[in-house]
């Protein structure tokens, strides 16, 4: 494969692609005509690479995923997986190259975890889906990978959302494909489960050399785990690069910029912008001051480290000292601090 060597976005530290597209144009037919979401995409996914597709709502993430997964036809262009054009592929061939974890809800009672994961072996089994010893081994391995060995005979509908998602990942692993595609695998999960899912996927990419392609709204997690980020934009062309390159080039900020929050290049996180009521001087640099700063910002104060402002906050001896116009109040916790601040400020505004 020829490989353009650009300095910033577009470049990834991988060489041999398992999937690439040529002039892929995605979108769909509407009553009013053709709606093009992305035009002339040339994208690649490599073995062992964890690709995160991110972008604001409505930019066409799902359409891109559905198109690559073969659930929707492209408007134009080709997708090539493992050297074969998907247009020329039979369904069962496709199923041996690409496995899916979707957001479709599975409303089914009476299916055990084993039943569901066995479905992953369908591209390989006979008419009765008979599992050979080798199939059992692969299913066993798949369940190992998502830490669900003891769950084989549990009913799927009785599991938690996080466990269900892991079962579906195990199903995709049982399908034993070089490429695994997951549509928002961390949606509806709590933080520990989100992190666990991402860790599992990251580990799988490294250990099994599978290419893993997922879409997500978790910018934070994507920045921390992805090898490559595909940054979709509603208006401009999709940007591709390592998370770091995309942050440094300002692309990340540009796509998600908004009036209500800012992206902090240093911490790599987004910060909500609050309306500003006034300024507060805050001294100290320990963990107590950090959380006091967050509380004050949330309350609508800009926090300054110089001591020029008439509201001052300082943490010492297990107490927050609030100083307004040289009157000092000792507060035991943040709630008390904010309550006192509100009371005093409303008195001041009443008297003026």
């Amino acid at each position, binding site marked *: 494969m020829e490989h353009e060597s650009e300095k910033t976005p577009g470049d990834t530290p991988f060489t041999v692609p398992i999937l690439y597209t040529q002039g892929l144009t995605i979108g769909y037919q509407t009553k009013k005509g053709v709606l093009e979401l992305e035009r002339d995409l040339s994208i690649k996914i490599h073995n062992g690479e964890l690709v995160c597709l991110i972008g604001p709502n409505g930019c066409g993430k799902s359409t891109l995923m559905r198109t690559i*997964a*073969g*659930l929707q036809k492209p408007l134009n262009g080709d997708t090539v997986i493992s050297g074969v054009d998907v247009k020329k592929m*039979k*369904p*069962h*061939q*496709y*199923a*041996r190259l*690409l*496995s*899916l974890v*979707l957001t*479709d*809800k*599975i*409303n*089914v*009672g*009476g*299916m*055990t975890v084993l*039943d*569901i994961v066995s*479905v*992953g072996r*369908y*591209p390989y*089994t006979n*008419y*009765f*889906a008979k599992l050979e010893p080798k199939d059992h081994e692969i299913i066993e391995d798949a369940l190992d990978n998502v830490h669900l060995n003891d769950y084989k005979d549990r009913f799927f*509908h009785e599991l938690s959302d996080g466990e269900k998602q892991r079962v579906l990942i195990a199903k995709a692993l049982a*399908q034993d494909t070089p490429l695994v595609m997951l549509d928002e695998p961390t949606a509806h999960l709590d933080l520990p489960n989100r992190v666990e899912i991402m860790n599992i996927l990251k580990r799988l990419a490294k250990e099994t050399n599978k290419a893993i392609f997922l879409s997500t709204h978790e910018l934070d997690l994507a920045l921390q785990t992805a090898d490559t980020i595909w940054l979709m934009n509603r208006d401009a062309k999709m940007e591709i690069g390592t998370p770091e390159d995309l942050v440094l080039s300002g692309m990340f900020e540009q796509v998600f910029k908004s009036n209500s929050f800012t992206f902090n290049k240093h911490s790599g996180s987004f910060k909500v912008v609050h309306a500003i009521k006034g300024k507060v001087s805050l001294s100290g640099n320990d963990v107590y001051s950090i959380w006091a700063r967050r509380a004050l910002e949330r309350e609508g104060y800009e926090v300054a480290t110089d001591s020029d402002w008439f509201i001052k906050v300082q943490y010492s001896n297990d107490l927050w000292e609030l100083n307004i116009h040289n009157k000092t109040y000792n507060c035991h916790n943040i709630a008390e601090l904010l309550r006192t601040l509100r009371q005093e400020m409303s008195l001041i505004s009443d008297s003026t």
Partner: protein
Amino acid sequence: MVLIGVGSILCLFLLDLSLGSVKISVEELFRIISGNASKKSWEYIFFNFRLPKAITAILTGAGISVAGLQMQTLFKNPLAGPSVLGISHGASLGVAVFVLSSTAIFGVTANFQETLGSWGLILFAIIGSFLVLLGVLLASSKVSDTVTVLIVGLMFGFITGAIVNILQYFSDPELIQNFLVWTFGSLSGVAWSQLKVMGPVLVLTLLFSLFYSKEMNALLLGENYATGVGVNVSRTRLKLILTTSIIAGTVTAFTGPIAFIGVAVPHLARLLFRTSNHKVLIPATMMCGMVIMLVCDIVSQVPGAQTTLPLNSVTALFGAPVILAIIIKSKKMKGAF
């Protein structure tokens, strides 16, 4: 579980042979089979009425239940079934056209009944049920909501019912009488000559259904997942529609519309076998269907009395409460499926 199933089918089969307006003891049954009947009339009753009726019960029970299961998986709807979605009504329309046609629309010359016989009856019923099923399926691709699809089926039922009424209005009283008796549903109307047609058709389609477990399991996870594991969803759908219409059409043609068995039995099977895996569920549903149908037939014969009850009412009395229970539990409707 399988042993219990087979055992109860055998017991009920014998019971169904033995009970009726004339009681034939089980020992007598064996004597008749070995050719040493105590009474010639018993032998006649046994071979010409009881045996075809019991065989019909087994075939229709298994058939209509599997058709229900296929529709529940196809529509991903726990309340789907031949009688609920208007499929039986479609078959009725076919039968009505077939039975009533001589005077109603085509004039006396087009008396299908005489020219086509049992095969014609089956064909008309299958075409009727296929058309309605296709209609419901098309409508359900526009609306995915479970209950809406049922209402669509109901409407199709009304439409076909209306056409049947119009046909009746213009028909010979005698033919109407025939048709009305048919709508009550009965297994005893099936004689050997008809069983010769119905038996092979049902046995074949039931055997085919056993091969669908893999695709049906994949469909349980949704069309996208099914496509993702290499299942050709539209072909599977077509296979299921065809099989369902053939089974529902054939059964309805000969026994009349049998209400609610198709909806209720698959749930019974899921409950008893605690699984939705079609590899188990398809044979389990067949087994439960045979058992329930034999029971319904025995009940409809009102053992010891000279009268019989319409089969359709007996199955409804059994099936409707099951459906009510499912609807009342509808919070868990998804889990029940």
